[in-house]
């Protein structure tokens, strides 16, 4: 069976130790996490985990089912085939001299990335996009000398509708959802 990347999205109860339960299950079932990103959701008592894993369909399905058994995992869905919008954020510290700085800035502009720090001998580039975009920019910057990279791992939403993770039991939040400015800036199909 073909080994592909899968994006699993889990809604979990916001309690201490949940991340440990999820991550240790991967280790115990001999399964590697490519990336995991955790953050709050529109619902106050729930966190959202976006987990990117590599494996064949059967193995990923097995992991999804095992994760579903974790009591605090309220819902878990494999959204790989739902054509999700997936983004990650990377901070890249790249070596920059007076002679290379403007070239780097040009590349950064093409990628609609931002320069968020300028030092005499380096720049920090902030880039958002899908994994491929971040990799492409890193490849281009590598020639200048990358000093440090921090990547968040992928987060993802399915397009349109209420989403596969709609949890009926949880009451709707009172506060308004925050507008997602960054997503608006970046074309979905970059």
């Amino acid at each position: 069976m073909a080994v592909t990347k899968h994006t699993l999205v889990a809604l979990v109860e916001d309690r201490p130790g949940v991340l440990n339960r999820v991550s240790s299950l991967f280790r115990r079932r001999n399964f590697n996490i490519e990336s995991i990103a955790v953050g709050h959701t529109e619902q106050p008592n729930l966190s959202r985990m976006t987990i990117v894993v590599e494996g064949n369909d059967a193995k990923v399905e097995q992991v999804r089912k095992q994760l579903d058994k974790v009591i605090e995992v309220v819902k878990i869905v494999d959204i790989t085939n739902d054509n999700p919008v997936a983004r990650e954020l990377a901070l890249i510290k790249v070596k920059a001299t007076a002679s290379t700085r403007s070239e780097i800035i040009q590349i950064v502009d093409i990628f609609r990335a931002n320069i968020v720090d300028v030092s005499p001998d380096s720049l920090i580039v902030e880039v958002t996009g899908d994994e491929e975009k971040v990799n492409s920019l890193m490849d281009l910057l590598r020639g200048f000398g990358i000093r440090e990279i921090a990547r968040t791992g992928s987060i993802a939403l399915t397009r349109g509708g209420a989403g596969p993770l709609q949890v009926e039991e949880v009451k709707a939040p009172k506060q308004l959802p925050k507008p997602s400015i960054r997503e608006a800036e970046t074309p979905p199909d970059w």
Partner: protein
Amino acid sequence: MKKTGAQILCEGLVREGVEVIFGFPGGAVLPLYDTFPQYPQLRHILVRHEQGAAHAADGYARATGRAGVCLATSGPGATNLVTGIANANLDSSPVVAITGQVATPFIGKDAFQEIDITGITLPITKHNYLVLDVKDLARVVKEAFHIAQTGRPGPVLIDIPRDILQQEVAFAYPENVDLPGYKPKFFGHPAQIKKAAEVINSAERPIIIAGRGVIISGAFAELRELAEKAQIPVITTFLGIGCFPETHVLSFGWLGMHGMAYANKAVHNSDVIVAIGMRFDDRATGMVSAFAPQARIVHIDIDPAEIGKNVRVNVPIVGDVKNVLQALNQQIIPGEHMEWFNQLDKWRQEHPALVIRDSEAVLPQYVIRQIYEVTKGDATIVTGVGQNQMWAGQFFFYDKPNSLISSGGLGTMGFELPAAIGAKVGRPEETVWCIAGDGGFQMTMQELATIVQENLAIKIAIINNGYLGMVRQWQQLFYGHRYVHTQLWGPDFVKIAEAYGIPALRVKDKVEVTPSIEKAIEHNGPFLIDFVVEPEENVFPIVPPGASLIQAIEIPKPEKVTGLG
């Protein structure tokens, strides 16, 4: 009304119907022990080692179907529970383990007898809790018993710091649990059940493989109805023994590494397998890629993660076995499979598995068979792990529902004696036989003291061959007859028993076997028999590790027997 954490815990235990706690005190749980006299309805059984508490709770849970409770202090008390918790986890046994923890200000400081037991037991519990606020305690107890006993049962651990046991808070026990992430599916999907019925109704060579899920679900009558209505032979897993009467005409033994060769042959040649409450463990399937190559598989299990985990499944049904079978049975067309049964009978005659060879020596198989004959099958059998376990599975016929208690998934030597304690406490009217090996018995024989202190009339049969027999058998068959560290010196078990105040007999002669069993049963109280058996007797059939089910090594022909060992 305000209550202390210790009182809240006891109130919760009483409300959950707990009658007995298997425990061992220590510093961190002293506030709880100090509270016990206020709750005389909670019987506390003092074990001699915490592992015994966990196995006893497990044995109690298996015997009664209700949660078994074990209790230990922090640190070493908690770690000693670990094997028993893992054992309960792999065999889906509802155990609630309560551990003391150092007081909250000391957590994380490597304090005296501090251990991260929730971290340690994370992969071997269905769920666990560290209670950091006394206000959470009542809810946690309620949830723990709910989680342990519903869906696919399993162990739940509650770790309670000493100061939480002492703090006071207004007490109210919750009526319900609120667990949005825990919603076991109890009823099978109607469309899947319909599909399963079609597959079963059109089968030519069907078999049922029934596992412990049938016992847990209490689906004895439903399984029997399905088998009789559709005329399908019932093969059980090892842990499924006792879910279908073994003397029933449709009973066709159990499958797997030491299963009957004819049962394995039936599985291999079947065209439809109805797998019920079982999980295709590697000891049951043999080489997975060669497992039942022609079969369409209907798999009924309450745990969705078990479906498709080890073998491909054609019709998965997630739900409680009893409910699913009730719905399924309505759609089953009465069938008959004469040709298939003729074939099966032929295989059964060609591959006898339960023949005891002629011998003057005390054969372990003969001992088990005589226990069956004397008790007429009316007993609960608790076994150790290894040869004694397999012989107990093979040579006793289990007609009574849920009459075999054994460590299947984890294969824990030393399970037998403490689990027998739990079984006897759960079934005080029943004759409980503990079938032990001389190796496993030495792992937990300190619990003889518990048996005497509680005056539990457990009958103990040690199948004493002076070896770690199953390992020796593997060394003989697969490691060139090199017996490395498997010969086992043992103490005089009769004197050991007598030192604890338990009457005992040693049996070295075949003619003494039956009278000794009779004597043990007649004695009103615990009794031990040390059966000194043929030292190098092997368990047959045996499917070599990594081989397919049909590649079993069967009972050697009589002339070869003398050459063995």
